[in-house]
């Protein structure tokens, strides 16, 4: 069985500080990897995805993530956060042979303080 673990349920940071949101996964087969963001009372929006190729992927709003196959991790980073980045962040995986079935982590609440 596959699973996704987001290691921090809450991450408080000050504005303009760097942030890393951690995500580890387990799967016996290759996976596609995604990060989504959920603002209050809204649906999820795609931040970035890793399908293949370069292990460093860049997404919207200045976020990036690095796929590390040996550590089965896909951590999300931003060098300088803004108040507007306050939201819930979800890591998700899709197995190669299970089209469209996203398995989500528990979510990390990023709280950016002035």
């Amino acid at each position: 069985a596959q699973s996704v673990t987001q290691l921090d349920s809450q991450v408080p940071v000050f504005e303009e500080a760097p942030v890393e949101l951690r995500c580890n996964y387990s799967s016996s087969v290759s996976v596609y990897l995604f990060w989504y963001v959920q603002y209050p009372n809204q649906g999820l929006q795609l931040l970035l995805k890793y399908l293949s190729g370069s292990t460093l992927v860049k997404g919207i709003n200045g976020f990036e993530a690095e796929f590390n196959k040996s550590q089965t991790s896909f951590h999300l980073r931003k060098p300088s956060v803004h108040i507007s980045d306050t939201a819930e962040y979800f890591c998700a995986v899709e197995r190669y042979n299970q089209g469209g079935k996203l398995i989500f982590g528990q979510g990390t609440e990023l709280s950016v303080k002035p």
Partner: protein
Amino acid sequence: DTAVSQTPKYLVTQMGNDKSIKCEQNLGHDTMYWYKQDSKKFLKIMFSYNNKELIINETVPNRFSPKSPDKAHLNLHINSLELGDSAVYFCASSQESFNQPQHFGDGTRLSIL
């Protein structure tokens, strides 16, 4: 010009009732999904349809029945509502049924009294 729209946004009803949630996407996508987000914000897929055909059916009680009249619509009907059905239900769509980003609606918050 909303891409994935769900109605209603809020649904408050009593145990035992039957209710439906509608979803429409105007992105021209072939695949649509229903997810359930519980009170701890955990998201779990329920169903997926590709061109009106069911392709993912997770272990969901058979009180939940999805219906796709065409590939732009995926509705969710729930019979005999129970307290545990209280959650936010999200509809989503994607171009294909694999390795594609999914576009989510704003959710329907279902509260069972």
